């Protein structure tokens, strides 16, 4: 599960967007030059709030289970060549706090912090037009985990020198 794709899914479903209106930030994707409203989801960074390692026995030998608990920061840019983004920006916040969003979060084990939203006007002149752009950042807590086999102490070779 990638939280960024689930966030895209929530926004697309709640705002009834086409596949071409929302994408994960990528320099290879140009902003379309029509007057539609577009949504770009971006990952800004994360803070580690838990880093866990446990060992356990299994049929395959000794295993290691690791998990990292993250407080990640994501950003959604709502942009348009006209003024569409201005009226649509609040709907993004509502979409992320919708019932559908809650269901997706529960199904995938992550949580969008409800009171972490920060909206910044990042409109700028671009070529001959002004791109209306609103950047909405928010926090997401999620967990990544991994299980791997590890060496047991009896697989190490050791030389012992005694007096006998």
């Amino acid at each position: 599960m990638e939280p960024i794709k689930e966030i895209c899914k929530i926004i697309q479903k709640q705002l009834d967007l086409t596949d071409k209106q929302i994408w994960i930030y990528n320099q290879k994707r140009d902003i379309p030059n029509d007057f539609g409203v577009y949504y770009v989801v971006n990952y800004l960074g994360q803070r580690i709030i838990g880093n866990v390692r446990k060992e356990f026995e299994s049929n395959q030998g000794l295993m290691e289970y690791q998990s990292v608990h993250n407080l990640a920061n994501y950003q959604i840019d709502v942009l348009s060549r006209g003024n569409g983004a201005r009226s649509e920006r609040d709907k993004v916040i509502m979409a992320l706090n919708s019932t559908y969003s809650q269901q997706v979060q529960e199904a995938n084990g992550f949580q969008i912090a409800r009171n972490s939203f920060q909206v910044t006007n990042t409109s700028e002149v671009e070529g001959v037009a002004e791109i209306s752009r609103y950047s909405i950042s928010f926090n997401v807590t999620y967990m990544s985990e991994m299980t791997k086999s590890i060496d047991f102490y009896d697989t190490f070779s050791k030389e012992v020198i005694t007096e006998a």
Partner: protein
Amino acid sequence: MIINARNKGLNYVGLPQVGEVLPGWFQPLQFDIITKTLVNYEVEEVIVPVKTMGVRQPFTSQKLAIKPEGQRAWNWETLHCLPNVPLKIDDKVIFDNKTYRVMNKWDWSEYGYIEVEICQGYEMSEES
């Protein structure tokens, strides 16, 4: 009544339909077009092979001179081909394993051809 150039006005541009004679200049061209699509919220590049008629020419020195400084050293070419090629600005094309990007396009489909400017991409050494 005599009708001559005076009747057409000053803003009349008379480019003839050259689609029938251009194949004499063109030769068979085969290349791949790389177009970008969104799949599962991510950009994916799709390669579409194309067969058409056309001709590739290097830029003249005059045309090169008006390109932004620093891009002059790149390999620019002009491609004329039949209008059945779905080329768009920012698409990539592969000629003989060399990748070029479409930098500009003049759509003269009404007159039987399209003209695009392509610029060879940066070639990286392959990882061993």
